[in-house]
């Protein structure tokens, strides 16, 4: 299971970093979100034990390993935050694409002047 997580996280990281470096702000924003998804998977993978049943439930008494609840709590927080940042980023890109008539980051360069 851990190997699967490691490979998936690695692939998502690579994809995200590649998209972030594209010359297109919308694709860069997607890369931003893919990177956060990779981190979320990483969080799930570092949980203390690979449980199959929820913690604090009656089935724990039945001898099954519970899953780690803390990483799930962290994960929920991280998902909400990354989702909010993604929404704000897309909103800003929408404003700037209307103003500059392009989403090429090399053409959005008024600050350099």
């Amino acid at each position, binding site marked *: 299971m851990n190997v699967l997580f490691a490979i998936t996280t690695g692939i998502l990281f690579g994809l995200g970093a590649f998209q972030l470096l594209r010359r297109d702000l919308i694709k860069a924003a997607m890369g931003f979100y893919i990177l*956060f998804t990779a*981190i979320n998977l990483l969080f799930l993978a*570092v949980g203390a034990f690979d449980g199959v049943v929820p913690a604090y439930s009656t089935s724990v008494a039945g001898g099954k390993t519970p899953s780690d609840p803390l990483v799930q709590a962290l994960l929920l927080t991280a998902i909400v935050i990354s989702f909010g940042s993604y929404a*704000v980023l897309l909103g800003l890109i929408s404003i*700037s694409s209307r103003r500059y008539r392009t989403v090429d980051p090399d053409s*959005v360069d*008024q*600050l350099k002047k």
Partner: protein
Amino acid sequence: MNTFNNPLILGAIFLPIGGAALSLLLAQNRTYQHFIGLLSGIGAWLSTLGVLYFNLTQGPQVYRLGGWETPYGIILVPDLIGSIFGLMASTVVLGGIIYALGCKDKCVTYPVFMPLFLCMAGGLHGAMYTGDIFTLFVFIELMVMSSVVLVAISDNRLGVEAAIKYLLISALGTLFLLVGIAAIYATFGTLNLADIARKLASGERPLLAQAAAVMLMCAFLLKSAIFPFHFWQPDFHTTAPTPVHAVLSSVVVKVGILGLIRLTNLLFTAEAPLIRSLLLVLGLIGIFFGSLAALRTYDAKRMLAYSTFGQIGFILLGIGWGTPAALVGAVVYAFNHALIKSSLLMITGAISSRMPTKSAKLADIGGVGKTLTLANILYLLGGLALAGVPPLNGFISKVTLIQGGIDAHSFLPLILAVGAGLITLLYMIRTWQLMFQQPPAPELKVKPKGDQLFAPLMLISLCVLLGIFAAPLVDVATDAVTQLNDSQIYITSVLGH
């Protein structure tokens, strides 16, 4: 073990956030909104002052949210250094709110301005007070998101571009922070700073923990705009509205500084010599790059943003030397720099608000302040304080820092830093002469009314006061450093044994 939950700690964080919620409800009425903003700013300031007082009398304060046992629940631990940084933040935030009340910018009249500003303040105070590494991430994100939106709604049309740039770069910093947190959780199974410190001190030190140190350090360097992660700062800070710029350039960059202090003095004490020698080099680069770039730049606001690199470099030198005297220097320097830099930025903003185009370009702004005696005196005082001329507080911070350098027997960085400090005098005096001493260009139509100068007046008076009566701040900083060097005090006050 201190089992008392001090409610003042919550006041510093949740008064601004509650004020933000309330002022969103009253979005239709700007007077009520500004009144609530001012009220919660004053409340947060009094709370941070109270937290500092309780720290001095009773030792580190702890708030266990939800009443969970310590290694498990979320806790807020303002120890002495945290509460000094918290007081610094809330003072500048209060100044920023007061400035915003008298600000002529259009963005200040938007109904979202005050809620966002208060959210930023709440995140800032939370990041200074938290004793939990994941809560640190949450508060930093709250601060970053509100400041990004505040810059995007700025009167400066380039704000949106700068906001996109910063949001993407800051996301990378957040990624570093999250990977560091994941690595720490995988290694130690805890997120509590005191618990991590105790486990690290027991000699348990797998490779993953050192990787986490690198990741956390990258994140903090990025948040503080330190070389090699500095490039976003001038654009992002210069396009911000003036009250936001004052808060960003003076206290938001200090969050990373506090993180670095915690990293070297609480968590990774065994790796600290390595981290410190790196910080020393980065500090020297920052001092030279910042001072020279400030000298060669074309815009009064941008010059101060570049000068922040240099000033952060001085603080890094103090952390890098790492002896108690040098750390006292770093803490005093950080506190004084926040007051000086925010007031200078507010005065520059007030001057450029009288320009028809609101620009602060040195080519246009010449002589605009010729008739403004108060701004003239305040800017001169602030500039001299930034350069470290007695009897202002900048002099005290330079002296404590130099004492630290002598104490650490590190003379080459010391000489370089003192030499580069003179460049500060050069660019501040040059800008002061340009803005206030020469007659304005004849075709320039200076507006009769601009932003109010009450907030910079308040902050500069604090600067003068802290220059003349420097002993309290230096004493408190000395106590804080004594507490820092014995990380057992922090661990015991959180975990109890």
